[in-house]
């Protein structure tokens, strides 16, 4: 019975609860809906961590499993939700203020989808879970019905998302056609040892294309900067962190450990993934250099990060998978605080241009320090956490003998510093502009950002907790291994 209190169920119940509260409760109570959402997300996070690894409801077991990946990534996604709720709470909805409850509730549904995705063992489950995420996100991106930028973002996300889902479904269809099943372990069992059929390779290619959109890998990246810029900040946060991570979890599940973890497929896809990685790192880094809008800068920086993860993933070994898991946590811990910070900047200045950061180092030293540490962690500067992540990417590439990836990755890490220093420079270096309104950050946010910055520093100096997570994620399945009977 307790199996039914899993994060997915609680998330959906919370979402429904928030909407019902808005519909039925008296006006006074409705004002607290944002705060309630934050409290709910934090409680679900606590429960997810505390109950991690407990068995699933029996009726789910044909479609879902609980293993190391779910133990590590369900808390990851719920932590993202906490961040998104925090951002939403501080986000001004303007004319849409009357439907705030929906704005707060939709991320809950999307997160439920992500948690399901982390444990999916069947392509049908993946498809259903992914649609739950995508549809919630289309709504969230176009939430400002009257603002052209937001509508454009929603439209782009819808078209691109639809396209990527199309590729994915087509791939699943081909996979079903070539192996007669959509269940991971059966595909594995059936295809193991055989040379890969063209249909199987086509299927894998289509699935990779679909997921390439999700993680914004070159050449499927073009939507990211526009959507990040136009969408409301909480949606950007969700897309930048949770959605990207979900794409990588699926890549690990499908190409690294599950359905298509076949020698015959790896032979063909190793060079493809590595080439995509090299292209993604290069384009993300170079295109970020001229950006002065921080949302766009983060979008390109996210593309570059996706490139590093693709490089590690492209080695298709266990070390590569572990590296991606660790990298995703490092990415989350550095990016989420920056997005929370940007939301506040936007709230004050109505834009996220880098010049709004000028003089912040003197106005709000705590905030500036925390955000600086996060940016430096993203840049991969030791002793911060991001350095350990990049270091293990480089180490993985070296031991796999992938010298081109190693060289490009190192060079781009140097060039990357060129744009991560732009906001830091603005905060500490530039003269204070005259027109800055004397608005200060609320003190609880100062503490959140400082804490996040120092978390990056402490975990960089002592990465043991992240190493434990990586080891846990690669540990064999906690529940009985997937049923293999036909």
């Amino acid at each position, binding site marked *: 019975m307790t199996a039914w209190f899993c994060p997915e169920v609680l998330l959906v119940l919370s979402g429904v609860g928030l909407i019902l509260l808005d519909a039925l409760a008296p006006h006074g109570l409705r004002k607290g809906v944002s705060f309630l959402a934050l409290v709910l997300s934090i409680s679900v996070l606590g429960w997810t961590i505390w109950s991690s690894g407990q068995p699933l409801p029996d009726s789910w077991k044909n479609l879902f499993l609980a293993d190391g990946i779910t133990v590590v990534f369900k808390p990851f996604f719920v932590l993202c939700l906490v961040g998104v709720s925090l951002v939403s709470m501080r986000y001004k909805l303007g004319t849409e203020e009357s439907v705030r409850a929906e704005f707060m509730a939709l991320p809950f549904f999307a997160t439920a989808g992500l948690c399901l995705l982390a444990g999916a063992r069947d392509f049908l489950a993946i498809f259903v879970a992914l649609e739950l995420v995508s549809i919630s996100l289309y709504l969230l991106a176009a939430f400002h019905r009257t603002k052209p930028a937001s509508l454009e973002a929603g439209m782009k996300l819808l078209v691109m998302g639809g396209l990527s889902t199309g590729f994915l479904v087509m791939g699943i269809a081909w996979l079903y056609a070539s192996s007669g099943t959509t269940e991971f372990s059966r595909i594995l069992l059936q295809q193991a040892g055989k040379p890969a059929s063209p249909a199987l390779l086509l299927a894998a290619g289509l699935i990779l294309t679909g997921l390439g959109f999700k993680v914004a890998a070159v050449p499927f990246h073009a939507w990211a900067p526009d959507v990040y810029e136009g969408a409301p900040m909480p949606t950007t946060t969700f897309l930048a962190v949770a959605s990207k991570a979900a794409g990588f979890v699926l890549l690990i599940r499908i190409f690294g450990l599950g359905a298509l973890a076949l020698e015959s497929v790896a032979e063909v896809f190793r060079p493809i993934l590595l080439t995509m990685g090299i292209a993604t790192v290069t384009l993300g880094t170079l295109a970020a250099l001229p950006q002065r809008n921080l949302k766009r800068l983060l979008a390109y920086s996210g593309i570059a990060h996706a490139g590093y993860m693709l490089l590690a993933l492209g080695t298709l070994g266990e070390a590569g998978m572990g590296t991606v898991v660790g990298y995703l946590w490092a990415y989350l811990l550095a990016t989420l605080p920056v997005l929370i910070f940007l939301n506040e900047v936007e709230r004050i200045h109505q834009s996220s241009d880098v010049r709004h950061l000028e003089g912040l180092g003197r106005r709000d030293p705590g905030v500036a320090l925390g955000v600086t540490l996060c940016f430096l962690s993203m840049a991969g*500067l030791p002793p911060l956490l991001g350095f350990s992540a990049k270091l293990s990417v480089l180490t993985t590439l070296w031991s796999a003998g992938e010298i081109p990836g190693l060289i490009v990755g190192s060079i781009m*890490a*140097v060039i990357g510093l060129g744009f991560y220093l732009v906001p830091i420079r603005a905060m500490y270096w530039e003269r204070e502009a005259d027109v800055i309104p004397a608005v200060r950050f609320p003190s609880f946010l100062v503490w959140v950002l400082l804490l996040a910055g120092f978390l990056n520093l402490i975990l960089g100096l002592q990465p043991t907790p992240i190493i434990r997570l990586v080891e846990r994620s690669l540990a064999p399945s906690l529940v009985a291994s997937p049923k293999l009977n036909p």
Partner: protein
Amino acid sequence: MNMTWLLPALLVIPLIGTGLIALGAPARKTALFVSLLNLVPGFLLSGVVLRTGEILFGLQPTQVREVFPVQFTLGLDGLSLPMVWLTLAVTLAAMGVTREGIKREKEYFICLLLVGLGGLGAFLSVDLFYFFSFHEVALIPSFLLIGIWGQGDRTGAAWRMTLYLMFGSLVLLVGLIGLVMAVPEMARTLDWRVLTGYLKTNPLAPGTQTALAALLLVGFGTLISLFPFHSWAPGGYASAPAPAAMLHAGVLKKFGLYGLIRLALPLTPLGWKEIGWLIGLMLAANLLYLGLAALQQRDFRWLLGFSSVMHMGTVFLGLIGGTLLGLSGAVVLMVGHGLSAALGFAMAGEIGQRAGTTWMQDLGGLGKKAPKLWFYLTVAAMASIGLPGLANFAGEILIFFGSWSAHPLWVAVAAWGVVLSSIAMLRAVRSMAFGPTSKTVDASGLTDFKGFSETWPYAFLTFLLLVVGIVPGVVLGPIRPVLERLFLP
């Protein structure tokens, strides 16, 4: 008594200092106090190292962790001891030469303390991960120091220096990864003590050694500003505020040389033989090309920048000489150069502040107007030339003797380097210190050092230069056993 906790104390004390300053303690006083206080563990640890040879902190006898075997381990032995002292001394002097009333004092001293902390941590680290990381800690504070408090083309200099150093660091990182990965998985470790021991009995294949030596040369070489990776250095130092230039030229640059002596040379000896001719050419370019460039400078800061870069050629000569004598000379010259460069940049800062310019043709007659300024300026110049009795001379002479048998040609080149450096420095001293008092100096109302509170950092550095110059044994004694362990079969 167990003194191992003094090792982390060396790092914690400046860290507490930055915390106190951030919370609002008076910045300059706190920074000075912290730097002074750090001498106490420095003295105690020196005693231990001189008696027992080595002291370690945080070494756990646990098995090597598989995924990411980092371990926070600090160690101090005869080779790191002079480097740690150099850092402590230059940090203290750098705090001392900063006057009250600089803009944004708080951030300024925090950045300076962090730069010093990065140097200390790198020299103390036994684990390669922390060895590399601590050096990088200094990167961003340097960027801010030059960018906010610098002069001249500070923006360009700060970006150039930061990106150059990041490039060097990443090549270095790849080289270090390669070094660790070249060891079979059973013996893989990030602890350079274990690594050195293992590779001494099981040397790598010659091809691997050459590739790694080349990577480490470019990596460390960029940090050291070896030709042709030097172009960040002169401009960076010329634009940096005096204490930042002192710490960078005096301390952080020695990190690269220290890494070469500690890791690159003993672990890939065959590789260094293989690319010895290339290093010879590079060091000759350092000495002659940059020496000639130094001759052309009209600004004292730029002159110092070039002259500090050019002396790296001499140190390299000691490194490739292949004798203990040459290597010992290189370490002595590292210390001497650290102290003399710090003194030189401090003087340039002082003159710039008091006379309003460091253009040598606009200065003149300092000797008459400000005899104390003149004295320390001359000491810095003479030390840089290699006047006997000052530390640099002891290092250079040992290097020349030690490398003569292997590389007579490069020794001859280095001797010409000394000539060039003498011409440049003597000309500088002549035009700044002697002759009639210039209009600029008159108009600026230049004053001499007043009292102990203004003079002591300069006197302190001069004193150390004299000590190492007259009794080079203070450096040679402790490093001897370490060099023997690293380089003798």
